[in-house]
Structures are given as structure tokens and as C-alpha cells.
């Protein structure tokens, strides 16, 4: 079944991740869903590097991991700062940019 399975798995994880991102209100869990989506993409890249006999996919995946790490770290710092003032974790209540 080869790479078809890979595609389906990757697509499924991506969609689950996006659903989770749209549905949850806790920002930490939203971040985790972002991680899910990035993981799905990584899976796809690494799998195909095997099929295509080139290392470009793996390098790309490595870069994505670096970026994801940096992004998570910064995002969590922001959430921390917001929590210090508001003492709640609900993105629906953070609508200061309304209108």
C-alpha cells in the first residue's frame, strides 16, 4: 500500500489538528494542536524522502522542528504574560482588538 497510507495518515492528523485548533478555547491546547499539524507535515516530508531517495525532505523536517521549537517557546511566554494579568485562560475573552 506504500505511500498512499502515508498520505492518508498525514491528512488525517492534519485535519484532526485543525479541528482541535478551531474548537478548543484553552490556548495551551490550541498550541498543542498546532504541534499536531506540524507533526503531520513532518511525517509527510520524512516519508517521502524515503520514497524519493533524497535527503531534502529530512532536512526540511529538521528546519520545521527548529522553527516549531522556537515558536512554541515564544508562544508559551506570551501566554504566561497574558495569564499574569488576566488570571484566566480563555481565548474568547481576549478580544481587545474587536471592531
Amino acid at each position: 500500500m506504500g505511500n498512499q497510507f502515508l498520505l492518508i495518515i498525514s491528512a488525517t492528523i492534519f485535519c484532526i489538528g485543525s479541528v482541535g485548533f478551531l474548537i478548543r478555547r484553552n490556548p495551551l491546547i490550541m498550541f498543542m494542536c498546532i504541534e499536531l499539524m506540524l507533526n503531520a507535515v513532518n511525517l509527510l516530508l520524512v516519508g517521502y524522502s524515503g520514497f524519493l531517495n533524497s535527503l531534502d525532505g529530512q532536512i526540511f523536517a529538521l528546519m520545521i522542528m527548529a522553527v516549531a521549537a522556537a515558536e512554541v517557546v515564544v508562544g508559551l511566554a506570551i501566554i504566561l504574560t497574558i495569564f499574569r494579568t488576566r488570571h484566566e485562560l480563555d481565548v474568547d475573552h481576549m478580544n481587545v482588538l474587536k471592531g
Partner: protein
Amino acid sequence: MFLYAWLILILPLLGFVALSWVGNRLPEKLAGLAGCATVGASFLVTLICAGKMIGLEPADRLNHVEILYTWISSGSFNLDLAILVDPLSIFMFLIVTGVGFLIHVYSISYMKGDPEFSRFFAYLNLFIFSMLLLVAAADFFFLIVGWALVGLASYLLIGFWRDKTSAVLAARKAFIMNVIGDVGMVIAAFVIFDNFGTLNFVDVFSAAPDQFRLNDDTILLITLLLLVGAFAKSAQLPLHTWLPDAMEGPTPVSALIHAATMVTAGVYLVARCHVLYELAPYTMFLIAGIGALTAIFAGSMALVQYDIKRVIAYSTMSQLGFMFLAVGVGAFSIGMFHLMTHAFFKALLFLAAGSVIHGLNGEQDIRKMGGLRKVMPLTHITFLVGALALAGFPLTSGFFSKEAIIMSSFYSPLGNFVFWGIAVIAAGMTGFYIFRVYFYTFYGSSRSPEVHSHESPLVMLGPLLALAGLALVGGVLGPWTHEFLAPVFGVESPHYHDVMLETVTVVIGLGGILIAALIYLTSSDRLEFAKQAFAPLYDLLLNKYYVDEIYDFLIVKPTKAIGVFLEEKGEKYGIDYAVDEVGRQVRYVSSLVSLWQSGKVRTYALNMMAGLVVVLLFVVFL
């Protein structure tokens, strides 16, 4: 060959620019000198051109088009800055610059002490330039440009004393009526361009006889439209009401613009486009008819006016009617000859009247004048000469030109008995009204003894004497004029000599003078008798046949009402409302759209997801 003829136009233009720029810093004498010098220099150049033109063979005299600069050249349409130097334009140059120069000299003394002295001379120079442009133009485009510019100069000069309400209103009236004429001219230019493909005089006039039959609809249209312009500028019926009011301006203005030059532009137009008019006998009949009617209409109104300048203004209207009568029956060079002699004696009359007014410190009502014969002898002599010339006293210049017109109105193939009859009656009236003024002003005893009157200074009297000389002996220029202008009109105007008709005319003319002497020179009983006998007619004439009131009722009031309506209702509920409504709708829509921006991250993420779905659809599947 005549390229230096451009100097004639450029010099007054430079004078206008210089005087309007630095004029108010110059002392009066210098500004006046500068203003006169430009026109004087133009006159000298004109004399040189005239001399050269006379030296040419008659066949060579036509079609000298001097191009200065090609302005527009697109496709088949060419428009150059060009002037046409032929006998007709040189003739007009001589009159405009010559009489203009004399009037400029007169103005140095007349406008002395006026705080806006240099502005006056700047405007006078502008006027001279515009009039020269009008008569020098080699195509309809620049003719109309000059036409409009003289209208502007007239407006500026009539309303020169800006604080005088009546002057400002009169200027506005004159300008509006001139613009009506301008509209006719512009439409005529469009029709001409549509039919001939060009606006050049030379091209249009050479193509016209081949292209159109007699009384063709298009030619009739063109000539009638041009006629609207001519009648508006020359104050013929029905566009005449602005001329009497234009007397609110200073007297030199009245002399220059409303006697000698601007108002004759209509006659010049018909003479210049004689090729077109000869192809439209119906229009010629109309011209002659309206000219004759105006002559008698204006003459009748002049009989009872008591403002000295107004009488002379009506007299101008009447004499212009004579000129139009002449060109209407095909006697073009006779009409131009009368234009020249009229310029002499009418300018003379106006300047003499100005001298009287100046001497009486601004009094213009003849009922308050009298006995000035002894106090202002030179003014008296010059006024008498002008009056005699106007009335057509034998051997004056006016006699020769008027006789020629009256003869041709009868004998010309396009003339008839009715025209002759009207012309003779108008001539009789002329004698009456001008000598009425003469007797009122210079004879009898002073009707306002408390005013101290004095003779005018030499600077004012000089031009008066010069013009008086021209008015007296100008008759000898007649044969020369006809011969000079013959190449332009293609045929030398025939001279008719019928001793019996001439005698009748002379007798009627002198009779008018005699009646005036009878009534006004001796006792005033006859005056009272005449007034009572003709009382209702007197009122009608004094109120100018109520034409102004009719126009006001028919045209001015409805136009004003429409304007007010549009401003109050149209602007407020129409245009303002529409513009505001656009603004309101924009605000409304934006308030709706701003609801979308909830500030919530999840909503934005949903939007991104939707966008992703759509983009994927297009990229992958389509």
C-alpha cells in the same frame, strides 16, 4: 512680405502687459505717455504697411497671410497664429490705431487725477490689441478670440469706476449681451468647420462659391449665426439695449469703443465674409432690413433723450444701422467708407461732449446746460463740425458717405424704395436730434449759472481739432477708399448719381436742422406745444419703447427664478443629498463589515480555514 505687420498687434499688447504690471508705480505722465506711445508706434507701422500696400498692384494685394507660429497641427486640421494683411485689414488698422491714438492723447488730460490712471491706459491698450486681433485674424478662430477679448475690454472699461453701481451693472449687461453674440459666432465656426474642413478665411472663401448654391440652407445658417454675433456687438435690434447703458463708462471709452471701433466690428465681419453673404441674398435682405429699422428706431429715441452722451449713443446705433443697410444691399466699400467717416465725426462728437462734461465738472444733462458758445469756443466749433458731419451737411465727410448709402439703398439690385424711404426719414431725424443737443448746449443762456465752466486744456483740444479736420475734409478720401478696397470685394462699388434723389435727401436733412433751430433756438413756447401734442409718443420714446422692461419680464426674471429654484431645491435636495447619501451608505456598510472583526482568534482561524479550503479547491482540482 508683411511680417512686420505683427508689430502693430504686439506693441499695444506689450503696453498692456507693462502698464498692468508696473503702471501704478509710474507717475501719471509716464504712464499716459507709454500708453500713447505704443498706439502711436502701431499707427506708424500701419502707415508703412499701407504705403507698401498701395505700391502693390491691385491683384497682388490679397491673401498675404503672415504666420508667426503653428499652434495646432493634428491630422488635417491646422491652426496657425496668423494675420491676414490685405486692404480691408489695413483700412481697419488705420482707423483703429489712428483714432485710437488721438483718443489716448485726449485721455491723458481727461483722466487726470484719477487714482487708477495707469489701469485705464492698460485697459485701453488691451482693447486696441484685441480690436486689432479681431480685424487682423486670418481665420475664424482668432476672429472669435479677438471678438471675445474686445467684449472683455469693453466690460472692463465700462465698469472702470468700480464704485459706481450703475456702471458695474451696465458693464455686466453689455458683457452678457456680447456673450449671446459670441455663442452665435462659435456655433457658426463649428458649422463652417464641418462643411469646409478648415477655418482659414482664404480657404473658406475660395471654396464657398463652388460648394454652395445661392440661398443654400447651410450658407443661410452660417450667415445667420454670424449675424447674431454681428448684431450683438454692433447693438442692432434686438440686441441693442446694452449700448445706451454703456455710456456709464468714461467718455474716452465711449468715444473709442462705442463709436469708432468695437461696435463697427459687426460691419467689418459682414464685409470680411462678403463672399458668404453674397451667396445668401435672404440674409442680406435681413441685414438691410434690420439696419434700416434700427436706424429709424434709434433715431426716434434720440429725439427726446436729455443726457448728452445718450443722444450720441443712440446716434451711433442709428448710424450703424446705416452701415448695415449699406452692406446689406451689397455696397460693401460704401459701408466701410461710412465706417471711417463715422469714426471721425462720432469720436469727435463724443470727445467734444466729454470736453463739455469736463468743463461743467461732470454735468451731463443738457437741460442744465446752455450758452457754452462763449465760454468754450474751440469745443463749440469742433462740436459744430461734428454735428454738421453727422447730419450730412453738404461737403462734409458725412455728406459723401451718407449720400452714397442712401443712393445705393435705392439703386442697388438688392435695394428698394422702402429702404430708401426709411433711410431718408432717419437722416432727417439725425439732423434734428443732434442740432437739438447743439442748441441746448451752446446757445441761450446758462441754465445752471452757479456752475463755473471753463475751456478744456490743450491736450484735450488737440485731438478734437485733428478729428474736426478729418471730419471736414474726409470726404475726399472716398474715391481712394473705394479704389483701395476694390480688390477685396471683387468689384468696385458703383456710384449712383441721381440729382433729383440727392436733392430730396439734402433737403430733408437740412429740414431736420431747421426744425430743431425753430424749436430750440428761439422761444420755448413751441417746445411746450410740441411736447403736449406728442405726449404719449414722448413717453414711449423716452422709455426706449419699454424694450428693457420687456426683456426683463420675458428673459431675466424667469432665468433668475430658475436659478433660485435650482439653488434652493436642486442643490439642497438633489446634489447635496446624493453626495451625503453616498457618505452615509459607506459608513453603514463599513459598520456592518466591522461586525466581522470580533477580536477572537478562533473566528480568524475559521476564516483562514475557509480560505484554505477554497484555495485548495482551485489549485488542486481546477
